[in-house]
């Protein structure tokens, strides 16, 4: 359960605080480039954009910039989203170094941080305005239901590496924090409409207003309909989807030390896919068009209170998710969560943060002949607490943060996740940071009670051999013995403002994983009575993989001219993950080949005269050897025109270099991946 550290409205807490908390150092260094030796930022060196990103901290003289932390942090701003032409959150995430973002089909994504990418990636924690959208079913994220009104996003903060001390179990390889603007900031109406060559249409409306002298609201609704793309043979695929959603947010600050937020969303989405499931009769598998839908809603309330030397935050939310896959599985989840957090400034140089949290999860599910989960109803309780202290030393030249999360869950009991982080200022323009942390990935419901029929080996088959007269079902089973996966991460980073216009940020890591999931063969058994129908060969979830990953992620920003910015990043990832000696897991399936070793991103953002904007980005993604996916380059283009304060027109081209390409092949559930096509779309936004 997650403490409340990403809210941003409120008189004192803020996302920057995440950073301030977790990442220790926030600003000893503050902005390495704009900080005088006394630790007070040299405000005159900051641009107006920098100033707008700074937090006003009412309890301390210190101000902090999100990007200056003892962790690998990347912030996608509203401006970045707008100028990238991204139509969804996953598309916006493609610019982040160290992340792997691959589209499986129109409505499925594989998104990972620093390796282990997959549709069911379980090492990345995603939050929307403080609400965890991590499903306990497979410890991952349903990317196709996580959507927001993109115009209302303030920023998306991406932290690569463990954030478990503050965020809790499952923030193993990264945290993605989607933060929307407070209602005060959206006090106007906006209508958008979009059409494109992909036969995509999208419309959205938002309106904001005042409820009282210090009470603001906004409401929004959005709808999109994406027609199917194409499969590997060039034929129209069965992967369209549509979604309608709406929501509201109210922010009230009745008196200076108190602020309240209430927000909620409702959504409904239909999706199509092509599914292959094993069968006991010839030809022993069937491939067919399958449909399903997602619906749900959430409501969240938060109270922030500030004192002269400390601040508190209390957050409560309820989240309901219903997934109905017509041929596979149904799942209904209710999550109730409450978190309390208290930040205390001790003297001039210490900040202490502690928190308590409780989360209750109710899950009920329905099975098919392919997938089943035992028990069909479950209730889980998670308790957590954390404590972290941040100390400035040597005239704020060194900042040390240490602390731990203590968590209790129904699967593995007690877990602790400590970290220690250092941030040092070498000079006015340079800082270095280093961190050692432990994080765990706790088991998901499926890892305890799943049965998934993966394939059927026909009777008499030679390869793989089946000498019996019965079909053999290869099935993946969960296990009550499955334990948490463990990570100890070692990270270092360096930031420099090399010249007034050039900055560089490098992060490097070595991650040491133990108890990673493997699938160990179990004792075969016969099914069917009284007449046997098949033999089941179980592969049981176990913890017999381990190994290390390492990588380096440089990022540079160059303001060539006041109206021209260049961005560049490179991500290198090496994964040496293997089965332990005592593992009998026969699958060749190895996470090492599912994440690109090399990726780079180059972006150019130009402000042209007459209120035109022209932005180009080029991405390279290395091949995925174990999935047989070749490397690819992708060129995106955005031309925007804002002739007045009310109207914005944009033209977006995506994947312009290739007519089509494949990005990923999903694991576990055999849906047919489809190809990303070159596309052009136009968009109009009217503000009133």
């Amino acid at each position, binding site marked *: 359960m997650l403490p409340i550290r990403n809210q941003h409205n409120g008189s004192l807490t803020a996302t920057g605080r995440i950073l301030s908390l977790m990442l220790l150092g926030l600003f000893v260094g503050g902005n390495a480039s704009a900080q005088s030796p006394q630790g007070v930022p040299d405000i005159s060196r900051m641009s107006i954009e920098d100033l*707008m990103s700074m937090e006003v901290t009412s309890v301390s003289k210190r101000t902090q910039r999100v990007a200056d932390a003892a962790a690998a942090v990347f912030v996608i701003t509203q401006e970045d989203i707008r100028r990238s032409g991204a139509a969804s959150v996953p598309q916006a995430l493609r610019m982040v170094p160290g992340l792997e973002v691959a589209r499986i089909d129109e409505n499925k994504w594989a998104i990972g941080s620093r390796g282990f990418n997959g549709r069911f990636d379980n090492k990345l924690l995603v939050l929307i305005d403080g609400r965890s959208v991590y499903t306990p079913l497979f410890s991952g994220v349903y990317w196709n239901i996580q959507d927001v009104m993109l115009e209302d996003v303030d920023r998306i903060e991406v932290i690569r590496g463990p954030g478990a001390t503050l965020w809790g179990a499952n923030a193993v390889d990264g945290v993605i924090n989607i933060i929307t603007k407070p209602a005060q900031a959206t006090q106007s109406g906006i209508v958008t409409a979009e059409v494109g060559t992909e036969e995509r249409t999208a419309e959205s409306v938002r309106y904001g207003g005042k409820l009282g002298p210090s009470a603001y609201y906004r409401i929004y609704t959005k709808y999109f309909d994406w027609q199917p793309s194409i499969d590997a043979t060039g034929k129209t695929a069965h992967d369209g989807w549509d979604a309608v959603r709406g929501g509201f947010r109210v922010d009230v600050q009745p008196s200076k030390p108190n602020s309240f937020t209430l927000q909620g969303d409702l959504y409904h989405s239909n999706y199509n896919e092509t599914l292959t499931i094993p069968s006991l009769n010839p030809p022993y598998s069937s491939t067919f068009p399958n449909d399903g839908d997602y619906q749900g809603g959430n409501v969240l309330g938060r109270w922030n209170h500030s004192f002269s030397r400390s601040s508190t935050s209390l957050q409560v939310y309820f989240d309901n998710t219903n997934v109905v896959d017509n041929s596979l599985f149904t799942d209904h989840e209710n999550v109730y969560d409450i978190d309390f957090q208290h930040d205390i400034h001790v003297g001039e140089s210490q900040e202490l943060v502690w928190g308590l949290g409780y989360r209750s999860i109710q899950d009920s599910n329905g099975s098919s002949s392919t997938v089943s989960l035992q028990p069909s109803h479950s209730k889980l309780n998670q308790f957590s607490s954390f404590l972290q202290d941040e100390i400035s030393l040597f005239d704020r030249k060194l900042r040390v943060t240490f602390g731990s999360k203590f968590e209790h869950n129904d699967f593995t009991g007690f877990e602790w996740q400590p970290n220690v982080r250092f941030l040092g200022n070498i000079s006015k323009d340079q800082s270095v940071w280093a961190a050692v942390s432990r994080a765990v990935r706790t088991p998901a419901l499926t890892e305890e009670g799943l049965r998934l029929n993966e394939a059927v080996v026909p009777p008499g088959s030679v390869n793989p051999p089946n000498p019996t007269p019965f079909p053999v079902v290869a099935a993946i089973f969960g296990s009550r013995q499955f334990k948490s996966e463990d990570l100890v991460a070692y990270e270092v980073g360096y930031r420099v403002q090399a010249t007034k216009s050039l900055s560089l940020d490098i992060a490097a890591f070595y991650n040491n994983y133990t108890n990673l999931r493997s699938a160990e063969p179990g004792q075969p058994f016969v099914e069917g009575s009284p007449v046997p129908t098949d033999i089941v060969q179980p592969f049981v979830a176990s913890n017999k993989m381990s190994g290390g990953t390492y990588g380096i992620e440089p990022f540079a920003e160059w303001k060539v001219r006041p109206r021209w910015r260049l961005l560049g990043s490179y991500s290198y990832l090496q994964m040496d993950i293997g089965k332990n000696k005592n593992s009998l897991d026969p699958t060749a399936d190895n996470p090492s080949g599912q994440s690109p070793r090399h990726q780079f991103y180059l972006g150019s953002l130009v402000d042209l005269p007459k209120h035109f904007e022209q932005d180009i980005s080029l991405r390279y993604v290395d091949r995925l050897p174990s999935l047989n996916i070749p490397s690819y380059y992708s060129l995106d283009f955005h031309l925007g025109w804002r002739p007045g304060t009310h109207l914005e027109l944009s033209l977006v081209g995506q994947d312009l270099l290739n007519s089509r390409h494949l990005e990923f092949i999903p694991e576990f559930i055999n849906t047919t991946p489809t190809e990303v096509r070159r596309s052009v779309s136009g968009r109009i936004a009217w503000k009133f």
Partner: protein
Amino acid sequence: MKYSRFMIAVLLCLSLAVGANAQSSDSPDSSEYLIKAGFIYNFAQLVQWPSTAFLQADSPIVIGILGTDPFGGIIDRVIQNKKLEGRSLIVKRLKRGASVKDCNILFVSSSEAAHLDEVIQSTKGMPILTIGEMPGFATRGGIINLTLEGNRVRFEVNIEASKQANLNISSRLLALARIVPQSAEAKRSE
């Protein structure tokens, strides 16, 4: 489930207890005015005055602070030894009713809220960038109003008022601003 109810009860009690000790958060060491001083320094760079606004090519840019000064010495430190296109910057503190005609930038403190219309009237037709930090400052005829959004500083711009003052605000600044219209009332008083 007993345990969880217990936890919730503990959390609620805790937060209430904490709430009962509430004090004002009007902490004097807020960073708010450090950031606002940075904004003002940036505005000075992103706004163009007509040449008539200055006596000579090297005349300083005069920042007037009208009413109770919320900056303390912060703004003086921020602009100290700075030059913008050959002009240095100086800060003048003005009492209510003092002449503002020598100012290029006039920061109107919230202490002047009750006299806002008089202040706006006193700058009429002069190339003075008026900056305030009170609700309605820009709609009532001020040019830039600094606001707090959550705990970040934002600003509103009244483009009509800037045109009347013969000031040219860069489009970069306008792109980041919330543009607000002049209220009908303020128009009538012209």
